């Protein structure tokens, strides 16, 4: 025992060295693969080497970090320094959607896409100022732990678990889906097989060592993902502008895009979207705001993603692992810094890709298209003239079939899947395959690290909150950890099985998770810390009302639009540019993936905007109607507010 802990503190003291060597080793590995490519090793072999080498490293870290202590398993022994916890949180936070999808979203939506960039960064201010450090002082293992303590026991705990599972399960499914997509695209593996390979990677990292293992692997994964994200675009920026800082040089690319947009309209290569008419495929200028989202929905997305950040259990629980409250605050700042490195680069990806597409694809003779297009066309990710861009001949035939087609590619002829933007950048820049492999490894790291964090959040809630606190409070340490691991396995397999069926709504559900977390958790957490008068009855009523309203709005608008119109006074959503209704509500309305009815034109991803204020109001009103919390409880709240002294809750 003594030797183990002195070995541990050696490790903590030498973190800089350990991860420095690791980062150096990783770069050497990339160079080595580059050399292998030069001597003629086939791309497919390089891809496999990349994926299996990185997963093997994560797995080794996971196995080395195995533990038999409960506090190590749940909160990594509360010894993770602020800087490294920030890095781990960065990896925990940035999912497959951030890594692969964000730049594509910005490409498609232009300025409006920045709602996501803002929403997924600014929330950390709320984490640090309102919630995170106080939960650290409280000393819980899970978020429902806090709700149970502050709000009178297991009913509040149970509600906390429901909110947690509702927002985390779809999210983890999306991550496993993401690993499947990346592995199948780069390794040519069958999607269903790839999903279970990804699952294996996730389990190896988390099962034996819980939070402790996940923390040390997430740091390793952060290093891989940030290197993979920045390298291609730094090279691209150097090629275009001679300066290796893409975040500064893309300002010029944006000016060039704006000039090219006007030229395209003038040359008849694009139709401008205007308030009179805005057909599908028409040009929406890159920097023009509110072309894709109404002003309400643009700011709604920013708000819901920000508040959602401060309510998501898998993020909040990362701050349970720091040695002190002070370090929890510093750690939030580091987290955002590491996240910022990726998010402020994503718009550069979007701008460079858009410039490439607008100058080298739009306006080009159909017979003269560049070959990199067809690889993605074969995967169904790029369409030209309404057909997958598989071969030159197919495209030429498809375009000829369109009446009055000029023989050059017009904007409205060209459709690209958003995932392609990041994945194809190395090819567009003409870089060797090894860089593409690096990007794949980065995407995988992003998906795996987020999946690990989420899986742990769910399994911990089930094992700690449901099993240990509600079912068998006398369970031994060995038994608790066995149950925790078994539940982790069950949840992981369930998520992988769900992902392998390719559920159609999976990506939309990630956005929903933020609103659900916001409506369910935020009012109760904030009032629990900042208002001593908040009572058990008030909090329980508030959670049910806020979460319930958000869930109701989501389900009704997505699956039962007709009922929404008939019974709940919903009206048609409108096009943000022309103001035309998206559906005639006088006729029967079928449920479609794109939302067509709602209240006040509110996008259902923003349902937290309805649920959260209701939650606050209900907690406030009901609390005032019920007797104030005991003196004892109020003293506990005072304790949470002072960093000094031990944790309020002494977890075993």
């Amino acid at each position, binding site marked *: 025992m003594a030797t183990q802990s002195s070995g541990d503190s050696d490790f903590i003291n030498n973190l800089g060295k350990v991860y420095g060597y690791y980062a150096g080793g990783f770069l050497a590995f990339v160079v080595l693969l580059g050399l292998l490519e030069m001597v003629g090793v086939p791309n497919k072999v390089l891809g496999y080497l990349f994926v299996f080498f990185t997963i093997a490293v994560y797995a080794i870290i996971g196995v080395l970090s195995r533990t038999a202590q409960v506090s190590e398993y749940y909160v990594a022994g509360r010894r993770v320094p602020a800087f490294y916890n920030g890095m781990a949180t960065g990896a925990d936070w940035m999912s497959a959607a951030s890594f692969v999808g964000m730049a594509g979203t910005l490409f498609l939506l232009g300025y409006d896409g920045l709602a996501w960039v803002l929403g997924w960064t600014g929330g950390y201010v*709320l984490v640090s100022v309102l919630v995170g450090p106080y939960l650290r002082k409280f000393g819980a293992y899970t978020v429902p732990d806090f709700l149970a303590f502050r709000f009178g026991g297991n009913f509040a705990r149970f509600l906390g678990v429901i909110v947690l599972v509702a927002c985390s399960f779809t999210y983890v499914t999306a991550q496993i889906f993401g690993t499947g997509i990346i592995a199948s695209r780069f390794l040519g593996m069958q999607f269903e097989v790839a999903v279970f390979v990804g699952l294996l990677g996730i389990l190896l990292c988390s099962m034996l060592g819980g939070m402790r293992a996940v923390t040390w692997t997430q740091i390793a994964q952060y290093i891989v993902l940030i290197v993979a994200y920045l390298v291609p675009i730094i090279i691209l920026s150097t090629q275009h502008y001679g300066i290796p800082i893409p975040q500064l040089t893309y*300002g010029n690319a944006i000016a060039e895009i704006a000039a090219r947009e006007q030229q395209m309209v003038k040359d008849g290569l694009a139709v401008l979207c205007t308030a009179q008419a805005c057909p599908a495929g028409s040009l929406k200028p890159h920097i023009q705001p509110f072309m894709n989202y109404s002003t309400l929905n643009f700011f709604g997305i920013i708000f819901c993603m920000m508040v959602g950040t401060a309510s998501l259990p898998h993020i909040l629980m990362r701050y349970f692992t720091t040695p002190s409250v002070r370090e929890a605050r510093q750690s939030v700042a580091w987290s955002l810094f590491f996240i910022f490195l990726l998010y402020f680069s994503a718009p550069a990806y979007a701008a460079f890709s858009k410039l490439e597409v607008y100058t080298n694809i739009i306006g080009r003779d159909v017979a003269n298209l560049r070959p990199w297009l067809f690889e993605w066309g074969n995967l169904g990710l790029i369409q030209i003239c309404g057909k997958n861009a598989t071969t030159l001949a197919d495209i030429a035939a498809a375009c000829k079939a369109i009446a009055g087609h000029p023989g050059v590619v017009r904007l409205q002829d060209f459709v690209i899947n958003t995932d392609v933007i990041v994945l194809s950048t190395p090819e567009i820049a003409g870089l060797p395959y090894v860089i593409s492999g690096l990007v794949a490894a980065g995407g995988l790291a992003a998906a795996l690290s987020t999946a690990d964090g989420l899986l742990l959040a769910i399994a911990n809630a089930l094992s700690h909150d449901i099993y240990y606190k509600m079912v068998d409070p006398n369970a031994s340490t060995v038994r608790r950890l066995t149950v925790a691991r078994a539940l982790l396995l069950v949840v992981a397999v369930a998520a992988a099985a769900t992902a392998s069926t390719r559920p159609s709504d999976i990506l939309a559900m990630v956005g929903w998770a933020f609103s659900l977390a916001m409506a369910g958790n935020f009012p109760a957490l904030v009032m629990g810390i900042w208002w001593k008068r908040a009572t058990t009855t008030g909090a329980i009523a508030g959670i049910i009302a806020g979460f319930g309203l958000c869930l109701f709005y989501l389900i009704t608008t997505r699956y039962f639009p007709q009922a929404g119109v008939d019974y709940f006074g919903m009206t048609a959503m409108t096009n943000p540019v022309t103001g035309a209704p998206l559906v005639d509500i006088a006729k029967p309305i079928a449920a479609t993936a794109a939302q067509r009815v709602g209240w006040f034109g509110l996008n259902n991803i923003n349902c937290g905007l309805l649920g959260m204020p209701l939650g606050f109001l209900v907690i406030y009103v009901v609390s005032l109607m019920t007797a104030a919390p005991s003196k004892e409880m109020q003293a506990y709240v005072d304790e949470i507010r002072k960093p000094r002294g031990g944790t309020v809750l002494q977890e075993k």
Partner: protein
Amino acid sequence: MAPTDSKANEEAHWAATTRLMWTMLGIWVFFGYIIHMFVNQLNAIKIPILGFPLGFYMGAQGSLIAFVVMLFVFARKQDKIDRDHGYAED
């Protein structure tokens, strides 16, 4: 050290903490929302050399930098409040 456990000290600590909280939320609202409401007006201004329209730049980088800086400043200020009232950890 001040009489840390007196009711007055406790209340003063919490009042200072609350004040800092509202200040932070105010700056957060400004950089998260208010400045982006003027995106069209700001876009008329071009940042010299870099070439970004200012409204776009604030959404893509400016506000993000503000958030990061805010968090480091907040960590220091709150720590100072805790120290001044004798509630900081050792």
